[in-house]
């Protein structure tokens, strides 16, 4: 398993380099321009000067290599310096900075990450926790009313976009009933019970919107996987052994059915970090999704490039995690 992991990590290096090049090329070829937001009254020479100061007059390949150096050498060294307190070299390195805010991109990400992890991450956890029992019962009682209702609800959750469910929830719970706030307040600090309740309240709606979507996906996987296993001979064997029905379903069937579901869940984790662009916009959660959309609107190439690349790294990483989980959970799979 260890050699497999190391081999996969080594293989990930060329993959990620290729991805970073493609992202950079796409962003460079796209029509946006960082100076387009500046008022038209600004004369063309000044505009040109701004472009030069951003390094846009350099050839494509130079800019790409510079970004690589900043991302893979300068930023990690900088993080290391902050953690350890040592200074490497002269400590004066060019960091990747956002064109729009002039602040280092990594700092922006660190600032935004907690909100995204709380809201989107929680929705993922809640979604999985709802989905697994629903999938199990749906499969065990296939075509029962529970299964029919479950299928119907997950079809809705799957096909109705989050901007619709989000607005619907806002209309019902924030506007009409006035139970929950429609805007997520990032400045809220959880210090006592009442602020904790306020935090829970503002998290409910964005979390539920995303949880519905995640749960409908995962519950379908869970149901299909359970159905695959329920008709297997080993389940019949377990019944023939005279095991209790609970043992048959929860020990024999569920454990085997969870193997593919756990890997699907692992593969979905990068989405959590990616944030939910639309849901974060609706509820004004200033997370990573919102950061990305602002960056795209302002043609803030370093920001978009860095964020997208971090997502790519996470996707590659969690693919590996899913494969390793498979090997751990299923004794039939051996990588060495």
């Amino acid at each position, binding site marked *: 398993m260890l050699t497999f992991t190391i081999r996969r990590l080594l293989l990930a290096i060329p993959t990620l380099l290729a991805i970073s090049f493609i992202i950079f090329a796409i962003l460079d070829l796209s029509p946006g321009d960082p100076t387009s937001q500046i008022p038209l009254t600004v004369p063309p020479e000044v505009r040109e000067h701004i472009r030069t100061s951003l390094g846009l007059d350099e050839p494509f390949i130079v800019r790409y290599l510079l970004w690589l150096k900043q991302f893979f050498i300068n930023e990690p060294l900088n993080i290391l310096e902050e953690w350890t307190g040592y200074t490497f070299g002269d400590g004066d390195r060019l960091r990747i900075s956002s064109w729009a805010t002039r602040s280092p991109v990594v700092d922006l990400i660190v600032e935004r990450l907690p909100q995204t992890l709380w809201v989107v991450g929680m929705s993922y956890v809640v979604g999985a926790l709802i989905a697994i029992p629903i999938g199990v019962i749906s499969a065990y009682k296939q075509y029962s009313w529970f299964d029919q209702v479950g299928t119907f609800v997950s079809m809705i959750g799957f096909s109705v976009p989050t901007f619709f469910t989000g607005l619907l929830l806002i209309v019902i719970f924030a506007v009409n009933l006035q139970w929950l706030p429609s805007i997520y307040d990032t400045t809220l600090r959880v210090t006592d019970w009442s602020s904790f309740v306020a935090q829970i309240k503002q998290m409910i709606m964005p979390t539920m919107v995303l949880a519905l979507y995640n749960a409908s996906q995962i519950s379908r996987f869970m149901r299909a996987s359970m159905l695959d296993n329920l008709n297997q*001979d*080993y389940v019949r*064997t*377990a*019944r*023939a*052994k005279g*095991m209790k029905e609970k043992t048959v379903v929860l020990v024999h069937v569920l454990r085997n059915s969870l193997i593919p579901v756990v890997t699907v869940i692992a593969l979905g984790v990068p989405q959590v970090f990616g944030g939910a662009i639309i849901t974060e916009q609706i509820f004004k959660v200033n997370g990573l999704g919102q950061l990305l959309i602002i960056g795209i609107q302002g043609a803030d190439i370093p920001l978009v490039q860095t964020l997208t690349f971090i997502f790519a790294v996470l996707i590659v990483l969690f693919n590996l995690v899913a494969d390793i989980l498979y090997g751990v959970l*299923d*004794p039939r799979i051996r990588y060495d």
Partner: protein
Amino acid sequence: MLDAATESAPLVRIQGLSKHFPIHAGLIRRQVGVISAVDRLTFDIRRGETLGLVGESGCGKSTAGRTILRLYEATEGAIIFDGTDIAGLSGEQLRRMRPRMQMIFQDPQACLNPRMTVGQIIAEPLDEHGSLSRADKRARVEELLDAVGMNKGFANRYPHEFSGGQRQRIGIARALALDPDFIVCDEPIAALDVSIQAQVVNLLEDLQERLGLTYLFISHDLSMVRHIADRVAVMYLGKMAELASRDALYHEPLHPYTRALLSAVPVADPKIEATRKRVILQGDVPSPANPPKGCRFCTRCPIAVDKCQWEVPEWREARPGHFVACHLAE
């Protein structure tokens, strides 16, 4: 062995056993019909004997075996196992009967839980139905592995690490764990190499002798059934066609379907093989969702008469111990 078995009461009595699977179709999945996979079977399985159950694919052999063990809910009929009708039992009462009747499956890979070690698979029913100490359980698992000719050290391995024949031995050890009286062998050798088939069949025979087991041996391999069975039952399209002692059935088959089946078995002697006359059946097996009204075999029977089309032949004892369902059998 057969003589001794004849005298005592049968271990399993099947009376009018049917298993129908509903067919659902349409928008609201209304039940539009049934597949009568097993239709009104009546026969006995004597203590200590091996009853062979043969028939072509899809004739309901496996369904019959599973229904007898109550792995399926019987639609109607009685399954009297050692004096108790288990067709009506449910839940806990049924579970308490499970240790006495076990099953060996066709696919030795699929019937073992891939995430449990061989030791766990064999020991699981011991936990459920017995109260053995850890050491006793360990000893029992090793004893069982030994009984099926496997190394004791294999208990900690997973099923996928074994060959098909070894897995089938594990399946047999698993079935034996609770000292059953009755084992349904559902095509236990069909998925194995010919060289391994003989080993497994010999093992089954050997265990029968040592432990006094009763087998229902489901197979489509007529030569193997001839080798292992004391009596043989032939099924066609969910119904019993003929049941007789092995020799009577193989030498004097009364049902035209049995005759056709037996004529298809190749003979190892080339002289006889050259003169062997095959009864070739025309057409396909009708759908069990819409079986023929009279005798189920009438659409393909070479000797069918008018009566066969509309009157279901009665299951009768044509000769002592020789049952047949055919109007024309004398």
